[in-house]
């Protein structure tokens, strides 16, 4: 409701502006806001959604601007073609920049983009044969009707609106969840098969393309460009706009861009303080409303909507859960029916042998317990099987398929799901969105297909939403679908992780201390849930210290001590094994 009103007001403002704005100066400012917005809208996907900091987009803006002037001016290309070519050139530059650097930790990537921005403005100055050096280049106009200030305004509004629509589509479908997931919890994103590096690269290339478009529009709206128009300050302006507008919101940064561009232009005295003004606004926003204007507005809206918080205990509906799991498996290929096997795997950390030639076979439809003293290598073994660690010796296999050299994501795609000792959820997303992340391995829609909201992303969205919802209702979280994951109680977080894993339609699920912090009654509930999972034919590996629970729930139990297996077999035998009693259970 509030969203529709805001949107309607915004559209009315944008459409009516040429008529209200008495003079061309105001119209020019509005056009410039639109030009910057074309860049900021997609930079926000990179910075706000994937959490990758780029301060060098001003360099891409410059390349786009020069490409437009050179191609359309010097070489006399059709301006539309030159505009597009500028976008493509910047997309390629983004690819070249991102390929070697996006694997680096965020700080180094930010430094690299800063260096890029500086290099571009130096090159524009130095390569006179191409750029005319400090004298600059005349920017060509677009053909009629876009050759007047009003016409250009409408062209910018059109392109800006289109880019906004694309980012909105990206944010609301599965790609949006994947982007936020890799920002908030890389580990969780990996566990549901989100490709970290590739996703960042794609978003960076896309933002490069739109920065190139913005560059062309910038050039023509200024009618003349010189290298000093592309100083680092402009890059900081983009950044500040995103921060004060609200990271991770689609329209928030628009507010930031508009405020930052309009205020110094409209309020005369502010103009001479340019950068000082940006700094001051940034300081105030970060201190007073860290989430930015967008989140402030969103937060107020949420307050009006929010149902009062009340304690709800997690009560699963086992029949529903059974149905949800079975139904989820109807969706894709049939289960392989093979075992997941670790054969004599070894893992060292420095001088410590954490896991020493351990073999373990997890069969479909069984619950396999893994117990042992603290530091005996249980979690390490789980990390080796799920791919978070590579083995120093031995092999991991799924049936006859060799998994040893593969990473986490390929294994997740093959149906190996897991949970974590400390629940790894995407804090900023709702319960339903978190569970839906488990549907990522089934997403076939590409990035651009999603940006254009094609039929396939829509269908996948519906299917995964229904599956995740059924899973959550089955596991007992049906009443809190819309709640942000970060405000969930501990028990609910644990169960949500299991629901996310089940939404992956796994063949195997590895649970790392799922009963940690649960009450006796909740542990019994967890036992029921595990029973349903097993009966559905999924193999469960259960790392746990609640030994009564382990011996009651598991079909087989393996005990580790100092990285080696000391006992293995039926619960009743392992629980009486003298060595297990001595090192682990106690008398």
């Amino acid at each position, binding site marked *: 409701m509030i969203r529709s009103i805001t949107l309607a007001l915004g559209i009315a403002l944008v459409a009516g502006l040429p008529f209200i704005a008495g003079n061309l100066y105001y119209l020019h400012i509005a056009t410039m806001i639109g030009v910057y917005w074309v860049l900021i809208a997609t930079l926000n996907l990179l910075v706000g959604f994937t959490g990758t900091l780029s301060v060098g987009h001003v360099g891409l803006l410059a390349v786009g601007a020069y490409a437009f002037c050179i191609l359309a001016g010097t070489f006399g290309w059709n301006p539309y073609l030159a505009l597009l070519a500028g976008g493509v050139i910047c997309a390629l530059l983004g690819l070249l920049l991102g390929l070697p650097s996006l694997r680096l930790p965020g700080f180094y990537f930010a430094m690299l983009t800063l260096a890029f921005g500086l290099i571009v403005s130096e090159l524009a100055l130095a390569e006179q044969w191409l750029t005319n050096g400090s004298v600059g280049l005349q920017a060509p106009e677009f053909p009629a009707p876009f050759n007047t200030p009003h016409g250009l305004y409408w062209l910018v509004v059109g392109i800006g609106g289109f880019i906004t629509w694309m980012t909105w589509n990206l944010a609301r479908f599965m790609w949006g969840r994947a982007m936020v997931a890799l920002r908030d919890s890389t580990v969780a994103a990996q566990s549901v098969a989100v490709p970290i590096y590739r996703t960042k690269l794609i978003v960076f290339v896309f933002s490069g393309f739109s920065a190139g478009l913005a560059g062309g529009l910038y050039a023509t709206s200024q009618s003349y460009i010189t290298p000093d128009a592309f100083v680092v300050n402009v890059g900081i302006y983009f950044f500040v706009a995103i921060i004060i507008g609200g990271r991770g919101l689609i329209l928030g940064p628009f507010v930031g861009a508009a405020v930052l561009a309009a205020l110094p232009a409209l309020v005369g005295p502010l103009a001479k303080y340019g950068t000082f003004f940006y700094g001051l606004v940034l300081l105030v926003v970060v201190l007073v409303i860290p989430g930015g204007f967008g989140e402030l507005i969103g937060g107020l809206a949420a307050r009006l909507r929010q149902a009062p918080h009340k304690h709800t*205990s997690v009560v699963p509906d086992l029949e529903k859960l059974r149905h949800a799991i079975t139904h989820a498996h109807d969706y894709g290929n049939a289960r392989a029916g093979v075992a997941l096997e670790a054969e004599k795997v070894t893992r060292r950390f420095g001088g410590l042998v954490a896991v020493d030639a351990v073999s373990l076979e997890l069969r479909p439809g069984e619950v396999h317990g893994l117990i042992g003293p*603290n530091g005996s290598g249980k979690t390490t073994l789980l990390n080796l099987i799920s791919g978070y660690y590579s083995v120093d010796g031995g092999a991991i296999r799924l049936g006859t398929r060799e998994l040893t050299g593969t990473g986490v994501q390929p294994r997740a795609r093959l149906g190996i799901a897991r949970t974590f*000792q*400390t629940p790894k959820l995407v804090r900023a997303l709702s319960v339903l969105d978190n569970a839906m992340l488990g549907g990522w391995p089934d997403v076939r829609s590409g990035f651009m297909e999603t940006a254009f909201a094609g039929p396939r992303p829509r269908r996948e969205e519906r299917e995964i939403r229904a599956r995740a919802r059924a899973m959550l209702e089955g596991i007992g979280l049906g009443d809190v679908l819309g709640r942000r994951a970060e405000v969930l*109680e501990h*028990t609910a977080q644990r169960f949500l992780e299991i629901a996310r894993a089940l939404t992956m339609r796994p063949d195997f699920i590895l649970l790392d201390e799922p009963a940690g*912090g649960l009450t006796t009654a909740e542990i019994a509930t967890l036992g029921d849930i595990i029973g349903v999972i097993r009966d559905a034919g999924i193999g469960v590996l259960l790392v746990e*210290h609640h030994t009564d629970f382990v011996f009651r729930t598991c079909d087989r139990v393996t005990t580790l001590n100092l990285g080696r297996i000391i006992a293995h077999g039926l619960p009743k035998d392992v629980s009486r094994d003298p060595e297990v009693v001595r090192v682990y259970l106690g008398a």
Partner: protein
Amino acid sequence: MNAFPPAPRETLLEIEDLHVAYGRAVVVHGAALRVRAGEFVTLLGRNGAGKSTTLHAMSGLIGKRAGRVRFAGQDITQSSPRDIVRAGLVQVLEGHRVFGPLSVEDNLLIGTYARTPRGDRARLDGIYALFPEMAERRRQPASRLSGGQQQILAVAQGIIAQPRLLVLDEPSGGLAPLVVDRILDVAASLCRDGVAILLVEQLVEKALARADTCYLMETGRVVHEAPAADLLGSDILHATYLGGHVT
């Protein structure tokens, strides 16, 4: 637990009418409890009852909406976490919170800063005697320990601070059965030496077996107080954990 009936002891910690909210959601409304010097108190209740929130508010880690907290004769309602720790109220948070990049030994030394501004290496030996598995790994970064070992380290960090009241929030998290008993026995033995203990734990029987007094919490309120021995296997305990109103 004690060989002699305890003499009436002074009140060390007193929480009165505590209200805590996250945004508009009030999760603790009117919690009250008392810990006497040298007493072993356990605070039990279902997940979401507000136990950890109460502890966090008491230690000054989150804000209080209303209420009063007194410790060792002073009003600490508005005190900073730092002053509260200096006064001798030390809380071990749940979920093995340690300083990952620092070595095990540095983590322990941080614990001694509460009492000694420049740290006190002399106390390390005592802790290593209590937890030999930490001595073996003293030079390793804490992040290299397993989850359970980090939990042991967190508890050790609380003990080395020489608190007057040691608050343990689910110390058993991620610990092997043998180690759970060891940690709780260490707490009980500290208590015999005069340190008061406030324990939140989901291993209800183990907690009650060692505590003097038990408080039960339900939906943000303390609903019952009784000697721990009376509660083992009682109806009220059962009701608290299984949904209260049904039974």
